[in-house]
């Protein structure tokens, strides 16, 4: 329960809506109780032979009926408005946490897992915010009214419904452990299924080409079956608890009858229907709370996953205002005695020192897996080094505001990843407001308009998921245009031309070398590409 409570404070951001929900909920519940008690009272008195004004009672009761319906409508409107506002806010917070925390140095969580949290787990909270929190509060009012009425008409009645109310709350508490366990299994299972499904679609070519697709689909079906088994278990528990809750309601009626039988003298004849009605109605709040407790397992599991993401530490923390360490006379990209490890077990970079000066292209070479891409990622400040510092024009990256840093440095990441959209939307990733001339220039330099590139729709060519629809060479050129768009001071190129032919490669290297102000750190393997660099730095590993 404690974890769930952790997500309640967010309600405070919409205090007005919450209070309104509580109020309307109180009106609804009171009005519904009023109709039940009023009808029972009226019927009791009429059949007991007393004269009461039926039209008068009718007007009052119909009035309450209209009030109950209007209040119920208003309550559900306000409560859903509240819930979906909170959900949208929470989605924003969760994605914010993730965009700061990723890429993670050690904890590789699968996309499907994270997506499940931001999409499905958060959606689960609708139930907490729209149907539970406020209602639990307002049911206290109903409890009070029932108690007062009970004491007024037959004090013994309390002995009937209060124990049942306790039973109603105790049963879901007793099964809470199992509920929690199943809740966790369900959310975990759903997340695993999504991850595996995303991988299946991404690796469709491999799976179809290896004949393993059927086996993989069977794996997914198996996951569905395992999930269904847990769901059935969960349904069995919920069903049993619902059955018990229903029995409790019936027992309340029976208990009231029993009291009326045994203590016939102290209850007025006209109050007998009311006695039964109030005993049953007294259990209403318990039903509300029990319903919340019954679903607490799933809610808790979802909440745990959400708070877990929210607690992910950011990959780097901004401290842009500490600038005293700026070395005025240094220019270009500098790695100063940089050490970095993904985890405690193995150091990737140890005491790496290099300097890429403006107008210079430096090739970073070394066997695969030695940490070249890691170095590139440090230059881009995906993470901060454990020891030493990375500087641009004398300023430690840690002390450059992110917006400023992204204007200084750009990159062609390994295997040139692209996003869905068009070639134009990909090129303008770093600057959506770039003017057409700049886009055109970058694209021209990258060779996108070269007839051999084969893009009849030019910049409007559609790009599908993971760059599908473009060839490796076309992707490389788009990625290059994207990197060149902002005319960055520092360019970090991680095998930018691996999927280009040698001619295109050297044409592009020529262009890159043309700017006298730009420092280029180039990770490359091809001798010709390396030869085009001004200097070569060998990375040999720690």
């Amino acid at each position: 329960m404690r974890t769930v409570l952790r997500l309640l404070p967010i309600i405070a951001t919409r205090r007005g809506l919450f209070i309104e929900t509580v109020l309307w909920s109180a009106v609804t519940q009171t009005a519904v109780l009023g109709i039940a008690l009023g009808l029972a009272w009226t019927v009791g008195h009429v059949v007991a032979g007393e004269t009461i004004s039926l039209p008068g009672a009718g007007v009052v009761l119909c009035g309450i009926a209209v009030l109950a319906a209007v209040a119920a409508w208003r309550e559900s409107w306000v409560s859903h408005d509240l819930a979906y506002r909170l959900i949208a806010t929470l989605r924003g917070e969760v994605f914010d946490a993730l965009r700061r925390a990723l890429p993670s140095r050690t904890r590789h969580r699968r996309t499907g897992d994270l997506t499940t949290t931001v999409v499905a787990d958060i959606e689960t909270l609708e139930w907490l915010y729209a149907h539970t929190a406020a209602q639990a509060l307002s049911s206290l009012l109903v409890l009070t009214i029932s108690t007062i009425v009970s004491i007024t008409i037959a004090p013994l009645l309390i002995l009937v419904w209060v124990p049942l109310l306790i039973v109603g709350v105790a049963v879901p508490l007793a099964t809470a452990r199992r509920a929690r366990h199943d809740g966790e299994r369900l959310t975990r299972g759903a997340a695993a299924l999504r991850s595996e499904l995303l991988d299946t679609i991404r690796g469709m070519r491999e799976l179809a080409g290896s004949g393993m697709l059927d086996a993989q689909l069977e794996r997914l079906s198996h996951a569905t079956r395992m999930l269904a088994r847990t769901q059935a278990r969960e349904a069995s528990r919920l069903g049993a608890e619902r059955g018990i809750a229903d029995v409790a309601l019936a027992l309340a009626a029976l208990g009231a009858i029993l009291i009326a039988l045994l203590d016939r003298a102290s209850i007025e004849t006209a109050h007998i229907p009311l006695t039964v009605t109030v005993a049953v109605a007294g259990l209403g709040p318990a039903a509300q709370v029990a319903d919340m407790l019954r679903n607490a397992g799933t809610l808790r599991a979802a909440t745990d996953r959400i708070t877990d993401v929210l607690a992910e530490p950011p990959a780097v923390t901004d401290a842009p205002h500490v600038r005293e360490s700026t070395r005025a006379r240094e220019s270009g990209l500098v790695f100063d005695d940089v050490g970095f490890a993904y985890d405690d077990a193995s150091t990737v970079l140890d005491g790496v020192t290099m300097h890429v000066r403006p107008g210079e292209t430096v090739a970073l070479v070394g066997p695969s897996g030695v940490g070249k891409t890691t170095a590139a990622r440090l230059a881009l400040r995906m993470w901060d080094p454990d020891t030493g510092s990375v500087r641009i024009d004398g300023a430690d990256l840690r002390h450059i505001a992110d917006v400023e840093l992204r204007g200084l440095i750009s990159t062609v990441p390994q295997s040139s990843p692209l996003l869905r959209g068009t070639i134009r939307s990909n090129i303008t990733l770093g600057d959506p407001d770039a003017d057409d001339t700049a886009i055109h220039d970058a694209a021209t330099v990258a060779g996108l308009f070269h007839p051999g590139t084969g893009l009849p729709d030019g910049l409007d060519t559609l790009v599908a998921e993971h760059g599908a629809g473009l060839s490796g060479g076309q992707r490389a050129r788009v990625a290059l245009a994207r990197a060149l768009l902002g005319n960055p001071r520092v360019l970090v190129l991680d095998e930018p031309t691996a999927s280009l032919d040698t001619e295109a490669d050297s044409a592009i290297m020529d262009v890159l070398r043309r700017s006298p102000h730009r420092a280029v750190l180039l990770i490359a393997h091809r001798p010709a590409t390396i030869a085009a660099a001004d200097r070569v730095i060998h990375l040999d590993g720690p």
Partner: protein
Amino acid sequence: MIHRRLLELAGAVPGAIIALAACGTVISALHVGFAFTLAVVISALIRGEGDVVPAFLLLAILTVARGAAIWGRELLAARIGASVRIRLRARLLDRLAAVPAAERDSGATATTVIDGVEGLDPYYTRYLPQLLVVLVMPALIVALVWAQAPAAGVALAVTVAVAVCAPRVWDARLLRNGRARWERFTRLSSDYVEALQQIPLLRAFGAADRTAVRFVAQAHELRSSTMRQLRLSLVETGLSALAMHLGTVLAALAVLAAVTTGSADTTSAVVVLMLAGECFRPVQDLGTNWHAGYLGLTAVDGLDHLLSTPRVSAGNHDRPASHGTVEVTEVSYRYPGARTGVTDLSLRIDAGETVAVIGPSGSGKSTLARLLERDIDPDQGNIRVGGTDLRDYVPEARCRSIVVVPQDPVLFAWTVRDNLRLYRPDATGIDIERAARAVLVHDVVEALPDGYDTVLAENGEQLSGGQRQRLAIARALLSPAPVLVLDEVTSALDTDTERGVVDGLATHTSGRTVAIIAHRETACSHASRWIALREGRIAETGDGAPAGHVVTMPESL
């Protein structure tokens, strides 16, 4: 509302729905029996006459039966729901491969297959059965009340009719709005998937916060869309609540009026009071179930779209190629909306040959690889492997005839061992190690925390590009297929490693047909022949490994 297409999608569920409806009817009848008996007991108490003990015992029995029936229904619903989900998801998964690469949207598909199917469950297991219950029970209860006091019966009949029929007026519009909401939900989920996969890219370009801002806007649009839809459905709920409250009050007042004129007795009055509420219970449940169920209805477009994707046709040649001859005859293929592809391409690679396919970017090399893998089919011409047209193979046999390692191979979040066994599930530890050693990746694997049993991160993220490429080559080496096509698989390797890998490949593929697609002559040093492509056609061919000048100066061709 009954959605015919959805019934078709679920397959044979009518029996299950009827069973659940029967369950619901029994529970409703138990409620009515309880209320009726309770009324009789209460009126006996009021009149102070008659023996209430037998009726009291009956109430106790009904109580137990009702509790048990409610539990039973939940069990049955869970079971039926599970079988609907399993079957529907299996049918959807079956079509995944048929979606063309350019239209694949993993996030949206996952939403359809996971959330869409999950959301449909209540439609089948709650809403439809309850619809049948509503057709039976309220009418029955109205008749019972009518027998006690006709005026009360009329009041109840009218209000129940309103409660059942009024919401249906909006159902169509609700569904339309719902589809728009579902569309947004799918879009948002799919965008999250892509962004979360590409956070490093977004951060490197300072686009992460922009994306976050866009997502917040999208999340709020989803909220508005949801609320637009709720505006209707909540009015529905309010209307049925009004009908219910008024119906109960009016029926009770009607019977009381009859009591005062002497045309009804105490028992009737209490019976009507108790039954009026029961009359609305199934209707209210229908409303609740509709809300749980119609969200699933809105997912039907996505489901239908996927299910109506035509399956890729396959032949029935079920034996893998016995020899590795590759014949490409007058093949043309053009990507939709692009100028690239291959034109009238004919080539033949004999069994056991190692042939280099070279040419500038966009000359059609990768298209050839995709064609050979049957990731795409030629617009014209045909491709035969081992003498059989690729389209005539059953998929399993085709996979055991030719294996293509693509430019950007995908690794799965399985153990390294399972990844390596992709093309040969029965490969032994020794086979796996030998393949890994051949392409110099054994030491890399050994250095991982659990060696070959290390579970890889998504797409092997903890590995470098070159390590990933070598795992993909090792994986293909294990395949028993006589033809191996390698599409620039050493592009991320340094020269020394590349040389070692290429040598290892040559030793391990002797006797097999190998097509090496490459930009660098170092990648194809063991080729006995080369074919240079240009603009989708063969520009030149030659014997031996392609000399440096051929690869580096394609303009001269």
